[in-house]
Every structure is written in structure tokens, then in C-alpha cells.
């Protein structure tokens, strides 16, 4: 992330508030913990991962509770970023030119607002998958299921629970694949990660990847001129 900002004074633009970043990292950390604990029960060759949590029995009760943390955290992100992730015409143009996205030929791409179609895809697919994982996860969570059965007045059949297990595993695999895309994109597009660490991105990053968003921020006057000192 420091590759480009050693050139002296450039503008930096605020992308995420402190609370948004904390919210993001709560979700991120719980996702990684869920991934590790979930995979340990998904495939026998990964069972050794359960040792990170103190054994399979701990995974059995801890995984659902981390899931609850993630669901609450994700709901926060959903509410925060919902409006900026609504689809718009530009998204279809961007998707139609996905080839140029992958080859970083940015001049063929339309000006993008705060999120491009790829980011919106991550947002919406994770929203659907987290919901699926929560509902099916409750089915696999003995005390949780008992609680919801009592509260909602139903009794899940074993066949429904089998289906829940299949859906939970499938949704988890998709969520992990999309998470890999999310992490990879943040690494590939250099200068992105500072948005979630320091909360700001360089003006050049905004110009290159989210020019429509940058123009809006500039119009609002919400930029900071940064004198890069040795301390940075």
C-alpha cells in the first residue's frame, strides 16, 4: 500500500469511518475463525484445524457462537453499505467489459461510484450466503435449534436437518470462494487495503478505480492534503 505514496504530497480521501472499519474487522476475524473451525468438521483431512480451538468438542459449541457474532456484525455492514450497493446501469457496462477489468485496462471502463459491480456482487452474494448459513446453521446447532423450535413453535424433521447440513456446507464453500475473491481483489488492486486499515485511500487510487466517487468526495471537500513525513 505504500508503493505509490512515497512520491511526496498527494491528496488522500477518506473511504471508511473508524466505526465502519471496526465493524468490518469484527466480521473479518469471525469469518476467518468460522472458516477454520468449519473446515475442520467439513473434511477429515482438515480435522487437525480443530486443535487451534482446543479440540472438536470446543469447535462444536464455539463455531455457532462465532456465527452469531458474524451475523450481527454483517447486519451492521449491510445497513451501512446497502444504499451504495444498489445496482445501476454502469454495473452492466462494467460487467460486459469484465475482460478489461481483469487485464487492468481501466481506460475502457466507465467511471465508477463507491463500488463497482464486482464489489456489489461480493456484498449481495455474502448477504444471501450469510443468511443461508445462519438459518441452516441453527438447524445443526442443538441448543440453538431447541431455542428456535420453542420460540417459533415447530419441530424440525431429520430430513430437514439433513438438507440444512447440505445447504450449510454448500453455502460455506461458496462464501469461502467469494471471500477468496474479495481478499485477492484487495491485494491485487494495490492501495486498497489502507481503506480498511487507515480509513483513507490515495487520490490516485480513487481516480483510477472509483472516479465518480472521487469527484463526489472532492465536491464535498472531503479530502486531506497529506505531507508524507518519515513517520508515515
Amino acid at each position, binding site marked *: 500500500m505504500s508503493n505509490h505514496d512515497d512520491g511526496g504530497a498527494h491528496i488522500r480521501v477518506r473511504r471508511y469511518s473508524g466505526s465502519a472499519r471496526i465493524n468490518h474487522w469484527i466480521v473479518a476475524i469471525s469469518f476467518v475463525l468460522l472458516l477454520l473451525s468449519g473446515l475442520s468438521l467439513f473434511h477429515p483431512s482438515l480435522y487437525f484445524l480443530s486443535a487451534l480451538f482446543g479440540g472438536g468438542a470446543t469447535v462444536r459449541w464455539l463455531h455457532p457462537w462465532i456465527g452469531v457474532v458474524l451475523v450481527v456484525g454483517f447486519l451492521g455492514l449491510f445497513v451501512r453499505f446497502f444504499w451504495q450497493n444498489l445496482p445501476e446501469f454502469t454495473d452492466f457496462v462494467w460487467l460486459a467489459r469484465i475482460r478489461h477489468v481483469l487485464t487492468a485496462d481501466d481506460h475502457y471502463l466507465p467511471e465508477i461510484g463507491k463500488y463497482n459491480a464486482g464489489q456489489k456482487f461480493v456484498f449481495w452474494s455474502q448477504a444471501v450466503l450469510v443468511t443461508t448459513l445462519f438459518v441452516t446453521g441453527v438447524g445443526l446447532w442443538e441448543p440453538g435449534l431447541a431455542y428456535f423450535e420453542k420460540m417459533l413453535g415447530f419441530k424440525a424433521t431429520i430430513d430437514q436437518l439433513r438438507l440444512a447440513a447440505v445447504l450449510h456446507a454448500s453455502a460455506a464453500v461458496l462464501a469461502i470462494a467469494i471471500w477468496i475473491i474479495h481478499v485477492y481483489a484487495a491485494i*491485487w488492486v494495490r492501495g486498497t487495503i489502507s481503506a480498511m486499515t487507515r480509513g483513507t485511500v490515495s487520490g490516485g487510487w480513487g481516480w483510477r478505480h472509483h472516479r465518480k466517487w472521487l469527484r463526489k468526495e472532492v465536491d464535498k471537500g472531503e479530502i486531506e492534503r497529506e505531507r508524507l513525513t518519515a513517520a508515515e
Partner: protein
Amino acid sequence: MFPPVRNPSTQSAAPKFGEKDLIRRSASTITPPAQRQTEVAKLIDVSKCIGCKACQTACLEWNQLHEEVGVNVGVYDNPHDLTPASWTLMRYTEYENPASGNLEWLIRKDGCMHCEDPGCLKACPSPGAIVQYSNGIVDFVKENCIGCGYCVKGCPFNIPRISKADHKAYKCTLCSDRVAVGQGPACQKACPTQAIVFGTKDEMKQWADKRITDLKSRGFDKAGLYDPPGVGGTHVMYVLHHADKPHIYAGLADNPKISPLVEAWKGVGKYAGMAVIGLTAAAGLIHHMLQGANRVSEEDEESADKLAGGKP
């Protein structure tokens, strides 16, 4: 009368089977022994059962289980369902036979069937928590059980129960500890009418044939052996007077087999899932190798500075 299993000698003897006789171990790959032990089986002759529950009591006693005192809701089933402390249960059904007009009292001793193809074991994610011995006994190994309840989803007979006290799964062991020293299961020992007999699987099938012939001679022309092929046969079998409709015996599965959902989840699903995750990660790596980093250029920074320069 079937010759009962003899009492053991008072000399201590080495167990007849153990770790070396495992043919399946949950979440593990093992090499089964070259020589398979003679398969054992318990035969439950429903037509001879008088519903005395001696088997239930013997099970509690031998396995040192303590069932809670229940509530009578007007049926004979007690407790109302299998529990972590009740590994076997008499299930009573009043069946009105449409052919004869008779009211028949069907009493089935429910419990683990010790499938040749055990769904519980296939679903279990914890290495060695469920094992199958070469004599056919499917056993839960408490120390390795993590209490996840996957065995409950895997079982085609709805047998395992998870204890709320210690979060472990429980079911009938076929008294593997007794069989290991040449004894029959406790329930069989206690049965006063030989409705439960125990021996090798071949002996049990032969004995069942005799019983079925007898039942047929008494007008139960649909009498037969319940040894469902969908799970590769079982090591607990029933003689049913109405073998054409097992479901009338308190919902005994007509054609039990491991649910296709469980097979998908634990079979192709595991490999497909790993492949999807692996391929996505590989696609990222390859893309980065071919494409290199997507860096912001100095011109980008200057354009941004210029854009912002117009504003104070």
C-alpha cells in the same frame, strides 16, 4: 428353543475382538484386517414378544444407565422415545388387521440396527468416534465423540441421541463388552420368551427361517425376516408377522437406506467443496502471476491532485 449363549467361565480371558478388527473408523482411512470375524447378529422375533420390558431393564442395568422417571400419557411406551439413557425401547402399536378384522398388538423392540453400511459412521466428522468391528458391531467411542449430532442426521433409523449432560452421542452397543468375552447382549439374556436370540448372523437367519415357517403355518402368510438390503443388511434383525409392511410396527422403515442428502454431503460434496475452494485460490494466484499488481500510477495521483486542486 434356540440353545442359549452359555455362561462364561470364571477364568479371565482376552477379548475376542478389538482395535485390530476394525473394518471402518469414522473420518479415518484404515486398512481392514485380512481375516473378517464371523458376523454376529441379534434376532428379535416380534411375534414372540410379550412386551414385558425385561430387555429395557437389563439394558439399563448392564450399561449402568439411569433413565428419568417419566409421565404416563396413556400409552405403554416408557420412556416416550429413545434417550441418551434408554438405548432400547419397546414400541407398542395397536393394529387393526383389515384382512382378519383382528386387533393385533404389535410390540417392537427399537434400538440400533448395527447396519453393515452405517450412516452414522459415514456422517461422523470426528476421527474414531464411531467404529465398526469386523463382526458387524457398530460402536460409539465416547472419548472421541464431540457431540455434533451428525450421526443423528446420518442414521436411517433415527437412533442416536445426544446427551444434554455431557454432549456425547449414545446408542445400543450390542453389548460389545459382553460379546467380546463370549456373552450375548444383556437384553437377550433377560428375555423370558426367546423373542431375542443372539448368535452368528447365519445361525440367526436359519433360526428366523424356522420361525417364519411356523408363523406361515399359523396363517401369517406375509411373515418374513427384516434384514434390509438398503443398508447392506443389519446385525439386528426382526422376524415380522407382516414383513410386507414394516411401517405398521411403530414406523419401522420400509426400505431404509442412507439418505441421498447425507451421501451428497459426505460423499461428492466434500471433494467438490475442496475443489471449488482450491480452484478459486489457484485462479487468484495464476491471475496475479500473469497480470501482476494493479498499481496506481503517478499520473493517477497527479490527475487526482489536479481534480482536487480546483477546490480550497
